[in-house]
């Protein structure tokens, strides 16, 4: 082994340690989902054979399907609406650029700095007055328009050639069609990044749903997990299985789209 190669050993060792620490809690979660409550407490680190049993306990004791349904509806609606609203706004800020629009963008960006804590109570009161506590509408509305996503799409539009838009106009295409048929298909990496960010955020969002969904019949998956933790008797095997079930969709989405995600982030910070 050469000297340079020797010098690289600490780097590989450090990365291995980082990977081990990153993955190990997830491994423990996955393994525990297949073990009995007693085995989880005894820190069994090998897969067991009680997956089906844990699942049965979980479904019998918790409204898993209902929470899964509500979480899915919330996350999918939020993602779709966020992609539509933010992509068209980000596109317009760049393509129909003007000083007034720049000023508006500057003001909207300030919203990134507003902590959710400062808006939570008035939002709750607003939806309470409108009689929309427990509604899907109230859960998703605060999440669908974010300055960050608009910024992401505006930055991505920077590299979009204006000549193409001009040509499309001369061919008689309307402004909406230019956006939806010519611009959007070229924005797949950005759409993927924005979609992943929004989906993960909505799926995992805890505080706002907990505030606005007063009735447990509408609870989402993170709320269900939190309620299981607060329960008097906890079956740790089925608790870890529940955590596993909640985490699988986000990990799959993430692994499938992470290449696009990295590209989107790179584009945004350029």
């Amino acid at each position, binding site marked *: 082994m050469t000297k340079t190669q020797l010098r690289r050993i600490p780097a590989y060792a450090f990365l291995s340690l980082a990977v081990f620490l990153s993955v190990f809690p997830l491994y423990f979660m996955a393994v525990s989902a297949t073990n009995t409550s007693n085995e989880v407490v005894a820190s069994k*680190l090998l897969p067991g054979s009680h997956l089906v049993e844990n699942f049965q306990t979980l479904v019998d004791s918790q409204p898993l399907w209902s929470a899964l349904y509500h979480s899915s509806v919330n996350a999918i609606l939020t993602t779709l609406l966020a992609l539509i609203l*933010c992509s068209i706004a980000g596109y317009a800020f760049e393509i129909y650029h003007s000083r007034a629009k720049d000023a508006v963008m500057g003001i909207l960006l300030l919203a990134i700095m507003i902590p959710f804590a400062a808006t939570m109570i008035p939002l709750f009161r607003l939806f309470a007055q409108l009689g929309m506590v427990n509604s899907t509408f109230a859960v998703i509305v605060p999440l669908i328009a974010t300055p960050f996503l608009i910024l992401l799409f505006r930055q991505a539009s920077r590299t979009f050639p204006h000549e193409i838009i001009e040509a499309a106009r001369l061919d008689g295409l309307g402004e909406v069609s230019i956006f939806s048929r010519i611009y959007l298909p070229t924005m797949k990496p950005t759409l993927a990044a924005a979609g992943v960010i929004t989906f993960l955020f909505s799926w995992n969002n805890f505080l706002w749903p907990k505030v606005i969904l007063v009735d447990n019949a509408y609870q989402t998956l993170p709320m269900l997990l939190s309620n299981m933790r607060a329960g008097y008797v906890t079956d740790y095997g089925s608790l870890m299985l529940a955590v596993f079930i909640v985490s699988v969709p986000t990990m799959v989405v993430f692994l499938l789209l992470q290449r696009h995600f990295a590209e989107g982030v790179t584009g945004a910070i350029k």
Partner: protein
Amino acid sequence: MSAPTAPTEDRASSAPPDGTKQSPDRSKRVPLSAIARRRSLTGWAFIIPAAALIVLVNFWPMIQALFLSLQTGRGTRLTWAEPLWLNYQRLFEDETFRLTMSTTFIYLIVQVPIMLILAMVLANLLNAPWLRFKGFWRTAIFLPCAVGLVSYALVFRQIFATDGLANDLLIKFGLLDDNVNWLGQTGTARMVIILGLLWRWTGYNMIFFLAALQNIDRSTLEAARVDGANGFKTFWYVTMPQLKPIILLCAILSTNGTLQMFDESFNLTNGGPGNTTMTVSHYLYNVSFRNSPNFGYAAAISYAILIIVAVLAAIQMKVGDKRD
């Protein structure tokens, strides 16, 4: 006329209605024709739904919260406070507010620097040209970010339970003699929350740093090497200055996130023991929605958070902007 590659300027002179808007020189004033005006309106129509919604769910409630913080009363029966700043006065006498605020600052001051340094080291390793299996390392270290906050809080709660995995492993390797009640003591419970935050967010920041590193102009690094700078000097004097904006962004986002941290405090330790691991946002939630809600006082707490976030961001921007 439909030649797609015709430069904008040419068209502007030959057919004014088409070339008025998309001039690459933005400072140049161009007379608005009817078509250009209609396009500008189209632009506004595209922007307004998102912009109106952002105003409705961010700016409007923020102003409402300010008015609310000047009122007192339980539930929905609220009256103007006497004096108006009564709720803010109460903040200074509130022991729990002081405790939760200082706990939040401990998380901030301990966790954010460690996380950013770790993320920077990892990003630099992953950016090394000689490194093999880059995708594997990156994916594995970024993976915790795909897990929800409640989910990981419960896994950490399980691992650091008195009869949990951490104790079992530490005893097995002879590092501990007896079980430690990690979540039952202030110091260790706060440490577990910080470990959780590091686990969840280091990879996230690493991705931002990595993206920024890959955008650095290679020629500046070559120039430093030609001038005889070693690895660390190159990093410190050439790479770091170019990374400043992204470090600033990550620092501000992390500060913002820590001051709003709720899920971990609520699910990992439930604020205990004796409220000593509770974050200020968790306290805000309790004041707002536990027992008899006091929206006026809660709004004052939320404004304290807002002001601290703004002040810290301003300080960070000031420091980050300083020319060396």
